[in-house]
């Protein structure tokens, strides 16, 4: 184990990481944001979703200025209901990241499983899985996500809709994203299957299942990691978009996208902070995760993208 860790540290991976200020910067920002989000219940100055603590008189308070009525200070200002923007951002990031990670996780499990099955089974099974993937790929994922949302809304009784919303969101993003994983895994697995060490394994007497897990899978993992990081960035953006459009996280459990939607209404009336700070947070989050994923892709896959 220690030998392995030492090898990793000395590897080309860490070498290029330490020399890419962009990668380091985005890694630091992304991990900080994630940490803040996880710690939200502990570090947030107010509890914006507990109606008992809300005071309408605190509404529309400007950043850093003590409120005219109550004297409370809000670092990023407050919204129309008197909620502290900083706190809403922290909880909002929580939702955004939760949905993002869960969706990617779902897509990864589904995609990797189907991709491996397609590659190893071949024949009709492979053809079917790939056809389905192709068809789904010809539609933008946003559309599919919205469709799933629409259908779910249609079959859920109105009183349950808000509670179920987050899970529907995860489901819709996850189900629209599996294709990438499946394709990459299938492609990678098929390349590996052509390699001679697989033939050698068959000659030695290794059975098919063992070949899949012990030989093929470890060689497919790097590509999966690259897709996972890119997927995470995309999932965060998709979730924000869906929430912004009103078909994502509900106002009772808002993500950054929902906050921006709410804030857009106040853009022209002068309370700029309601939309500005959540936008900034989303920008930092999306940018840092995306840059990290981009760097990762360039490092692990020199044939894809530019050196």
């Amino acid at each position, binding site marked *: 184990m220690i*030998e392995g860790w030492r090898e990793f540290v000395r590897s*080309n991976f860490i*070498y290029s990481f330490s020399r890419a200020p962009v990668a380091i910067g985005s890694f630091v920002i992304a991990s900080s944001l994630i940490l803040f989000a996880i710690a939200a219940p502990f570090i947030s100055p107010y509890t914006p979703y507990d109606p008992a603590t809300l005071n309408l008189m605190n509404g529309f308070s400007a950043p850093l200025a003590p409120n005219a009525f109550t004297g409370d200070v809000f670092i990023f200002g407050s919204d129309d209901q008197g909620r502290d923007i900083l706190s809403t951002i922290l909880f909002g990031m929580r939702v955004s990241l939760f949905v993002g990670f869960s969706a990617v996780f779902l897509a990864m499990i589904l995609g990797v499983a189907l991709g491996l099955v397609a590659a190893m089974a071949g024949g009709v099974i492979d*053809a079917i899985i790939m*056809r389905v993937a192709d068809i789904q790929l010809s539609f933008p994922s946003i559309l599919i996500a919205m469709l799933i949302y629409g259908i779910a809304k249609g079959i859920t009784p109105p009183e349950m809709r808000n509670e179920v919303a987050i899970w529907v969101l995860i489901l819709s993003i996850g189900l629209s994203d599996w294709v990438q994983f499946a394709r990459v895994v299938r492609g990678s697995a098929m390349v590996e299957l052509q*390699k*001679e*060490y697989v*033939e*050698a*394994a*068959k*000659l*030695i*007497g*290794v059975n098919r299942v063992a070949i899949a897990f012990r*030989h093929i899978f*470890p*060689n497919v993992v790097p590509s999966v990691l690259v897709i996972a990081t890119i997927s995470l960035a995309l999932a965060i953006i998709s979730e924000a978009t869906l929430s912004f459009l009103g078909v994502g996280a509900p106002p009772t459990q808002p993500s950054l996208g929902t906050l921006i939607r709410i804030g857009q209404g106040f853009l022209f009336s002068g309370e700029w902070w309601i939309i500005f700070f959540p936008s900034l947070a989303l920008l930092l989050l999306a940018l840092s995760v995306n840059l990290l994923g981009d760097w990762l892709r360039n490092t692990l896959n020199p044939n894809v993208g530019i050196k």
Partner: protein
Amino acid sequence: MLLAIENLTIRYPSRFGDFTAVDEASLHLDRGEVLGIVGESGAGKSTIGNAIMGLLQAPGKMVGGSIIFDGQRLDLLSKKELISLRGKKVGMIFQDPMTSLNPLETIEAQLLETVLLHSDLSKADAKLRALELLSEVGISAPAERIKQFPHEFSGGMRQRVVIALVLAGNPDLIIADEPTTALDVSIQATILKLIRTLCHHKNVGVILVTHDMAVIAETTDRVAVMHRGKIVETDNTKSLIASPKHAYTKALISAVPPSNRRIDRFTHVDFAKDRHDRKSIDLKSHWVGKEVYEPAAEKELLKVQNLTKVFNARSSIFSPKRGSTLAVDNVTFSILDGESYGIVGESGSGKSTIARLISGIHKPTDGSVLFDGLDLLNGIKSVQDKKKKRKIQMIFQDPYSSLNGRMRVEQIISEPLLLGGFEGSKAELQQLVYDLLFLVELESGAASKYPHAFSGGQRQRISIARALASRPKFLICDEPTSALDVSIQAQILNLLRDLQQRLNLTYLFISHDLPVMRQVCDRIAVMKNGSLVEECPAEEIFTSPQHSYTKDLIRLMPKFER
């Protein structure tokens, strides 16, 4: 003096410090002569060619010395001046004809472009010149073929087109960088002859870069030997081969399989530190030696009858059925216990397919394969049968894809041991792995490393150790040394021979390289387009071939005699 290079030094900066690709190299070339630059991989020979053209791959830089061409200092020219020289004064033939031409343009378009660039001809005259060039390089029916696209030409034909394009500018110096390495032996001979003829008729200077000593022997007038960036010896070809002076040259020549006779062993090439001195293992009492037995005389160990394989291009519900290929056509042969049987053929002959039919990777369309009485296609049912089947193992061509890059060497070799029913402690298993490594001349420290830490030759040794771990009786060697440098090849061939003697193995040796097979095989079968056309004792193939195809192969085989 057409070209004079003095003390040329080229460096590549890298993460681990500067790498000196070419180290104070000097050579010269006259018109009308072919100078060969020979060396193994990494010697720096292609780099010299690139430097002359000014096409060094970044981040390589020329840091010392001079290149004087026809009185001009090439290394001091500006980019623009260099561009004006290229094609017109200096031309280059690249290695892979399949990727040298623009796939989207016709041959005519590409030829016209180059001809018009380097001359003042009118378009009509240029078209005539293009046709002339195609005839010069031996392309028949040039008027029709000129309208075609590159993918409609075979590999050898494409290389001829490449040569025509190089000649289009009437250069005085032509650099040919491994021009025939990617081609079949029979095509290779004709291309080399073409180059040599053009050189002498047009009085141009040719630098021929290659790793193949036989090509050097047949095509060049003088030769420079390179090792690790340095030119260790330069002489005219005949003298160099007959009486080499530098130790490396001697070692290199001794590693080349002679085409005119069979030798016992390749004298060890000290310059390549690839092997570890063997710790001796008493095979009689060792686990590996337990299943070794004396070969039964005249017993047919492997019997192949009417073996046929047809490949159908993949058809799915959405596409109509495409054409099918007859890869193996009704092939019958037997291999005797303890012998070394060779199958030789060019690309597309079906030799690799036969290997995979025997090993079970492909299922034959027709025919049977019997191994020690066991019907490999239908009869593998009991545990005993499976055990017998494991007595067939294989060594593959590509050292880089024949080992799982994510497994340590120890795991790679233990896997077959465990599957073969090894019951012992962990320590015993590890010792066995070490012993197998010793057997293939690697040290025990190799066990904890990953494949990427090893060179090509070392990886092949690991592959052999893995195969031996199944205690095979029959070893299929599919082009095991084709991807290796000639000195490493010699060592691996020595190893294979030693192992055969110690463990009484039977070999099926597959290759396209006739001189190598002469050294290794007892009997040889010749395959062409899926059919077995001739089979006889090894020496007879070379001394008195019967079939016309075999005769052609022998005739066109590059000769290296010592």
